[in-house]
């Protein structure tokens, strides 16, 4: 396990991976209890997310996630998990990750975020600010025009962006073999004139290493890198999905053998910096983290008229009229006296 990372980093990384899995499981059960809507678990992609973010500097670098990663962005602060819980609850605060946390909210319209990353990296370059932008997206998302337009634009502009394809082998029920005939997603970098690297996405240290190298490159002014982190989706696409309809059992079983939470733990144990006490502590800390996030999110106040806030900096006359009419209606509904 050759790595430049210190023991405390390795420990923190495993803790974050455990936190992500525990939080994911918890949200899964909450959905099953009908307390939140559809949720996308992270199982199998913890190493990719954590390994990558550990190569970043949260005070200068940015992360733009798809929708699974927010569970594992603890390196950027606990706020990300809190907001993700609110997001799962369908509360508007869920999309609001406050400054100075350099993380975007989850993206639903696939691959659009890859272009935002290029634009943001361009802004850093124009403003002469240090820092890089790391953007996550799935294997399926690489089929969208936005992915290619982003890669091509980054190649031309030479901006400090890292494209991280978290290849979990599936886009809902669609396997990578139906997604592309290319020899791997990293090879698509050829189309952009930027380097493409494939890495074992189940190994956080391997991911850390390639992301750190891509970051150095970006900071040196040499532009973008496309990284394909090969991992596996160990759970369903979302709570609404039944993967037994399409995921081959043997393939899944084989992937489970490589579960990063098991393999990385073994590595740390072998290094003598982790034992079952650490494990128990980490699991408990994880449980408190998601408990805390859940409590925070469930206690957020909400008024129905908040619906109108933040469309524009200042509402239009029509929005004002609509808001007044709705207030009136809700007032009537609640007995009229409320007005």
């Amino acid at each position: 396990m050759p790595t430049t990372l210190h023991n405390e980093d390795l420990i923190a990384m495993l803790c974050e991976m455990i936190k992500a899995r525990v939080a994911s499981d918890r949200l899964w059960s909450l959905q099953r209890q009908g307390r939140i809507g559809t949720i996308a678990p992270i199982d199998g992609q913890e190493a990719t997310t954590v390994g990558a973010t550990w190569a970043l500097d949260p005070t200068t670098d940015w992360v733009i996630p798809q929708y699974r990663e927010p569970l594992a962005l603890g390196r950027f602060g606990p706020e990300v998990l809190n907001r993700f819980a609110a997001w799962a609850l369908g509360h508007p605060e869920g999309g609001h990750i406050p400054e100075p946390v350099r993380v975007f909210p989850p993206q639903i319209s696939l691959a659009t975020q890859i272009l935002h990353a290029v634009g943001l990296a361009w802004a850093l370059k124009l403003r002469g600010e240090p820092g890089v932008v790391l953007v996550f997206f799935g294997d399926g998302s690489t089929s969208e025009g936005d992915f290619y337009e982003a890669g091509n634009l980054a190649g031309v502009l030479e901006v400090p962006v890292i494209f991280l394809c978290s290849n979990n082998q599936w886009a809902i029920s669609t396997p990578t073999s139906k997604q592309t005939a290319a020899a791997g997603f990293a090879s698509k970098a050829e189309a952009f004139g930027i380097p493409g690297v494939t890495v074992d996405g189940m190994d956080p240290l391997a991911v850390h290493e390639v992301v750190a190298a891509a970051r150095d490159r970006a900071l040196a002014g040499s532009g973008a890198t496309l990284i394909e982190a090969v991992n596996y989706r160990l759970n369903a696409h979302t709570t609404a999905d039944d993967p037994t309809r399409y995921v081959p059992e043997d393939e899944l079983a084989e992937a489970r053998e490589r579960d990063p939470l098991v393999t990385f733990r073994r590595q740390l144990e072998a290094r003598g910096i982790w034992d079952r006490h650490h494990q128990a502590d980490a699991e408990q800390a994880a449980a408190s983290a998601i408990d805390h996030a859940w409590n925070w999110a469930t206690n957020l106040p909400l008024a129905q008229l908040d619906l109108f806030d933040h469309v524009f900096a200042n509402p239009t006359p029509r929005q004002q009229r609509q808001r007044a009419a709705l207030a009136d209606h809700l007032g009537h509904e609640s007995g009229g006296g409320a007005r």
Partner: protein
Amino acid sequence: MSDPTMTMVAAINATLAAEMERDERVVVFGEDVALSGGVFRATEGLLDQFGEDRIVDMPLAEAAILGAAAGLAAGGMVPVPEIQFLGFGYQAMHQLAGQIARFRYRTLGRFEMPITIRSPFGGGVRTPELHSDSLEGQLTNIAGLKVVTPSTAADAKGLLTEAIRDPDPVVFLEPLRGYRGVKGPVPQGEYRVPFGKARWATPGDDVTIITWSYQVEVAVRAARNLAQQGLSVGVLDLRTLVPLDIDEIVAAVERTGRVIVVEEAVPTGGFAAEVIATINEYAFWSLEAPPVRVSGFDTPYPVGQLEDTYVPDARRIEAAVHRLLEVRP
């Protein structure tokens, strides 16, 4: 009634199978439609029945799905692509509005586009962003597209059959909430519902509610509540927005003089405005009170905890009816 009762999604599924059976040029494709049978199971079983040439899991690229549909149509096929959620139709708007809608016009009929684009839309089921957006206002402003909005299981069958056989592009909008939330008798065998013929979901003489898709259910609920208060409120289900049944709208205005148009969408530039403009054009003098919109609001479709406020419900419609009846010229 001997017609079997089905959910809307079951009616859609059966209709797809029947049309694929009838015409081997029909091909179904989209994201996750084949192996998994679609995220709402609308295409379940088709893979087994028709094989992987006829129903195809596509790469995750909406413009590719619709762009390929245009090419397939030019090549003599009858494409039935699915856009997994209507909000992701934006990714393909250049193919839909700029290409599919114009191919016949551009080529004076050499290349027909008998394409039926199926897509779920509409709110009420706590989906994340962009899954719930109602884009009829935008789609109907694109000349060359037909826009079809069934509200019952039977209409889902009859209109989908018609859509697939129509030689022109049809955007077939399926209400998310209706897939399993709407059930009803579905005629067996060949069943077609012609485009451009509205349907009285509930007859009524005091006020007419004009709406489409899932809001028909909501409006009927409102009408039922109002009936208990002695009010006779009719609900006219437009069924298809393009073509629009102008005659029936005019007849309704002539009869009741008072109209409410209900839509889930952003009101500014929405289709309810078009209905009101049409009424002004053809039935102005029959109006006894200003026609009223009950809509979403001029905000993006909100997060789950706010959506019940955003989407019109029976109470908002009832309140509008009461207000409308108070109006005296």
